[in-house]
């Protein structure tokens, strides 16, 4: 068997794919954070909890209601998005005039509540979720076997990221959004319903987290704790990339996923901390982040 640096090429590419899968989750989650931050100036700490909610709902849907994966891929993000809209209307909207830190604190409290609720209902043990039939099995690429589900996660995540980019950068709705981000008062004066756009933005941002959660359901163990560990890494990703550009956050997410996957092969002990170490280095040399603009 071919080897690179003493590692079988099969294992190397396997880890590379796994890294890309993780990177796709980082990309979708940090994209959601960036979209919300751009509009609301709030870092959504509940993002990880809502990602977990997406995965848990997928499992609950199959376990209790008999709703399959494909329907949940549609329903999951909608449910999570509706939860987000409720959060925005009931709580977040009262905080816009205050220091941005209050938004972080509020969503942190919400994250604790959501996580605690699911933990109380379903315990901390991981739940398995089987891969849908159409996506089980693997492609034989000659030099490696590529599990279909992993390929699907990467393709689906990138499609959603691309779609988000297109909507925000190339459509009329996106132009309104960007205008409202730049100058909400003036945009409102032109007759655009800015509060509605803010609400929809938050709903859409957390729906992205829900979507990532549904995608993650068959790929990982579904547990109420899956969100909080991930979100801290995603925060580091956001600090590294900066939240200035959409494509920037997607690229940073993917890149860090790949680096993490490679480190897992060559230096397994460091795989849990490598993203944080990169963040420390970036802070030393480029404090605003790779794609960031200092406000």
């Amino acid at each position, binding site marked *: 068997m071919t080897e690179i640096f003493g590692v079988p090429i099969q294992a190397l590419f396997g880890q590379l794919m796994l890294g890309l899968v993780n990177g796709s989750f980082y990309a979708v989650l940090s994209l959601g954070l960036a979209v919300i931050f751009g509009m609301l100036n709030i870092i959504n700490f509940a993002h990880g909890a809502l990602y977990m909610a997406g995965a848990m709902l997928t499992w609950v849907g199959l376990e209790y209601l008999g709703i399959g994966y494909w329907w949940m891929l549609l329903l999951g993000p909608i449910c999570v998005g509706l939860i987000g809209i409720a959060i925005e209307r009931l*709580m977040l909207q009262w905080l816009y005039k*205050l220091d941005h830190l209050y938004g972080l604190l509020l969503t942190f409290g919400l994250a*604790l*509540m959501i996580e*605690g609720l699911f933990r*109380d209902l379903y315990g901390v043990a991981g739940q398995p979720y089987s891969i849908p039939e159409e996506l089980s099995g693997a492609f034989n690429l000659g030099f490696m076997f590529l599990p279909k589900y992993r390929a699907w996660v990467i393709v689906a995540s990138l499609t959603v990221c691309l779609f988000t980019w297109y909507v925000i950068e190339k459509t009329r709705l996106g132009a309104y959004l960007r205008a409202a981000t730049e100058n909400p008062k003036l945009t409102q004066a032109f007759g655009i319903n800015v509060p509605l756009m803010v609400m929809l933005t938050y709903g859409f941002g957390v729906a992205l987290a829900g979507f990532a959660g549904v995608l993650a359901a068959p790929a990982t163990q579904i547990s109420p704790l899956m969100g909080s560990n991930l979100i801290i890494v995603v925060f580091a990703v956001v600090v590294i990339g900066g939240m200035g550009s959409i494509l920037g956050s997607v690229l940073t997410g993917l890149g860090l996923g790949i680096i993490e996957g490679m480190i897992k092969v060559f230096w397994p002990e460091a795989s849990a901390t490598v993203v944080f170490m990169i963040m420390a280095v970036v*802070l030393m040399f480029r404090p605003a982040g790779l794609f960031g603009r200092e406000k």
Partner: protein
Amino acid sequence: MNRRVTVAYLIGLGLLLIAPTFLYPILVMKVLCFALFACAFNLLLGYTGLLSFGHAVFLGSAAYVTGHALKVWELPTLLGLLAGTGAATLLGWAIGSLAIRRQGIYFAMVTLALAQMVFFFFLQAPFTGGEDGLQGVPRGTLFGLDLAEDINLYYLVVAIFAGSFWLIQRAIHSPFGQILKAIRENEPRAISLGYDVAKYKLLAFVLSAGLAGLAGATKTLVFKFATLSDAHWHTSGEVVLMTLLGGMGTVFGPVVGATVIVTLQNELADKVGSLVTVIMGAIFVICVLAFRRGIVGESLALYKRMIGQKL
């Protein structure tokens, strides 16, 4: 300290001295450790305007270092406490000098991420005992007093708390503290007045980390163990909650907040199980939405209104 604060401080100290006659000393010591932790945190959030979301890591690292120093190196108790505090101070300097490169929300995310990195280090490092934690730490003796007796340790803990609290008050009311407040209120103006803002922020961060470390070191002495949960982000969240609930930027707020939260957790732990997290989250949400000045802040505001009406 102004006269009212001094009077309140002395009354509080008097109460603490007689508290063991009617309260369980271990619980009071736990409250004092977390109160010191929250006061140290308040120095940063309340007076400098920096929200650190990774403060548990200073509590945790000091807890581990003190535990290791007392158990494995068999150092005297006082040196053990110093070692823990020193380690947290150094770590505070390392994390602080990275984190102050960003502001506001990013500062919170950076501290959280760096703290998580250290948490993983503790999880893997052999000396921490991983998931089991560091157990059976001896309390040792101090000036010939056997600290294994809860009551002896109690007065040591009270002394540590009272001393640190006084130190924090001195810091806040010194010219240094005034500059910190200036940074909180208007950073660009503080810069234009010629202050080296980064230096002051770092100093505040290191001081806060060191005192949080002292709280962690003392905590190890009280419970005779150090665990991963001391360094977990949940604990970082808890100290934010204590400060917020008590009243950030107030002198006694963190003490009140820590007392309420620790007592609440103590009471609820065996009654509602994992719903404790939900209740903590709900308190967070309520505080942010309706109660932003915290218990002490709101009471003071109420008091001032009443005085004002009379005049």
